[in-house]
């Protein structure tokens, strides 16, 4: 993927470029807004990683001009400013995602991947451990063997797999399952989870119960 990195701080830009290249992306660098704009008009890119505070033409102006000429390139905004007000501004101007400095590199990688994927038309499957789910029909394989899941079980598993490592809140699982406005009860959800556990845990994943809150799916790694 071709990524344009517009950042005026040399140390940060070089580091980010190094990291992105290491993940197999082709990276063009720009040190100010005008250079970035030139690169956009020239070669173009699949994703623009844009620092808001740049000299000459700053990120906010660049973004505004891009969107004014209907440039659809996805934009990931970086800023050192306070998140709350600028997030609103950035998203209003048409940024697709937003990160506040300082941030961790893995986080940046994840966001970049997500944006590129979204631009390419989204995910086709999700995997965790040896578990794999095709999103088109929610068919699940464990270690290459198809798993028999009910429609509801598969729906819940998709939610858990999409947010693997994070808590999926129980009441929201129920809300998403309600087809006619009647959300299934907590007990019903518990029954589904119970069945899911029996079916998927042999594949090396765990559903943890967070009492009063929800569930968290993670790979069954040797844990500390």
């Amino acid at each position, binding site marked *: 993927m071709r990524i344009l990195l517009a950042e005026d701080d040399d140390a940060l830009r070089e580091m980010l470029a190094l990291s992105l290249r290491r993940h197999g992306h082709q990276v063009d660098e720009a040190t100010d807004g005008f250079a970035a704009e030139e690169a956009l008009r020239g070669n173009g890119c699949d994703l623009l990683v844009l620092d808001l505070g740049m000299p000459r033409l700053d990120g906010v102006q660049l973004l505004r001009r891009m969107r004014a000429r209907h440039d659809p390139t996805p934009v990931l905004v970086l800023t050192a400013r306070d998140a*709350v007000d600028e997030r609103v501004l950035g998203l209003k101007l048409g940024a697709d995602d937003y990160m506040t400095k*300082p941030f961790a590199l893995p986080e940046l990688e994840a966001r970049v991947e997500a944006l590129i994927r979204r631009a390419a038309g989204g995910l086709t499957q999700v995997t965790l451990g040896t578990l794999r789910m095709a999103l088109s029909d929610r068919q699940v394989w464990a270690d290459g063997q198809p798993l028999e899941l009910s429609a509801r079980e598969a729906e819940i598993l998709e939610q858990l797999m999409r947010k693997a490592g*994070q*808590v999926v*809140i129980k*009441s929201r699982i129920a809300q998403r399952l309600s087809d006619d406005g009647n959300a299934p009860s907590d007990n019903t959800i518990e029954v589904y989870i119970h069945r899911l556990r029996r079916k998927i845990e042999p594949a090396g994943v765990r559903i943890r119960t*967070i009492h*009063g809150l929800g569930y968290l799916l*993670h790979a069954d790694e040797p844990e*500390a």
Partner: protein
Amino acid sequence: MPMSPRPERHSTLRQRLVLRLLGPILLLTVLWGWAMHTIVLHFAGQAYDLALEDTAQTLAAQLRAERGVATVDLPDAARQMLVFDREDRIFFAVLSPQNEILIANALLPAPPTGHDASESLFYDGTLDTLELRLVESVIPVGADGAVYRVRIAETLHKRETLARKVLQAVLVAQVLFLAAAGLLMSKGVGHGIAPLQRVSQAIARRGQHDLSPIDEQRLPAEVFAQVHVINDLMRRLGEAFVAQRRFIADAAHQLRTPITVLHTQAQLALLSRDEADLRDAVRKIDGGAARLARLANQLLNLSRAEAAQVQRFDPVAIDPRALIEDIVALQVPLALQRGIEVSVELPPQLPAVPGNHDLLGEALANVVDNAIRYTPAGGRVVVSAQAEAHRLCIRVTDSGPGIDTGDYEMALRPFQRGATAPGGGSGLGLAIANEVVAAHRGRLDLSPAPGRSGLMVTFELRVVHED
């Protein structure tokens, strides 16, 4: 001379006071002049009336009774003396009991009412077009007591002249009085409000950093109260400035330590010869940078929470369930990583809370984060909520070492880390939560976790009134 801005549309205090006082005084003066005028005319009239009565008595003395028939002997000289007056014309008439005229120089009108012999009756009347003041005396004559009447009348010229002169004198006196009163009032009011001007000049002369109190000596009670309030504000502003400076100094100090650590670690990394040592050092640098990042974020959060107390935000109704679930869910991975069990206990119904979503979320996240960091592996963190009489209480209970009850107050202040604090905390979490809750006009309460070691942090928040 210091500039005193005084836009046109503001009437001065002096103008307002003088105008307020002058109106009633003008009214009183007019009433007082009218009363003076009336009183003077009354007594002067009485004096003229007495003179008129004297004339009547003189004429009455000329009545002679002979065998029951009275006659008036009025020689020419006497008659001339009788009607002589420097300004007015005098008329007289003497009437028999049968109302026959014994002697007269005019047909004088009868009094409007009857009266007995003991006293004279004064009345007003007209003769042709002349306005007259009259007196009638009743004179019993002879043994059978036949009653004769003597009437004397005079025109009103000297009375009117007197009235005019009295009026003029009173008016002149009043104008002088009003002028003097106005002048004195203006001066007096000016003197009275001079302390106000002194105070405003004293404030105008100040530099922006001079927050010392204004001199409260020799001020009248009303101004003293105002100045006292201003001084109180100055004192609090001064304290806020000091706190701000201390905060910046503390913040710089807090940043300095992890930066020094980073620096040292980087230098160690440069010295390390083997790959494993290098990786270890770099991992430590990464951890130090993460702590530094967290600290910077916390500082921003704290300043935002403090600003929220000064600049009020527009509160929206917040669903506490969604807020708690979202915030705790984000913290669970950290808890699991540290081997801590997190659970949430919420009743089915919770009242909405008016507030700012980001600030409250930040506050709760900080307290939960603290609880997780301070609790040793294998411990528990419980987040619960309960509606209690116009309040919503959100409680975060941990099974960590807790805080000594004597240190609670200190724990809510920025940069104060308890004796039990592990490394890595910024010492700002509780301070941020405290500021946020204060900005929501609620209370943050610390107490020992019930039934075990550990800390319980209670957010007491006002609820949205249902009406």
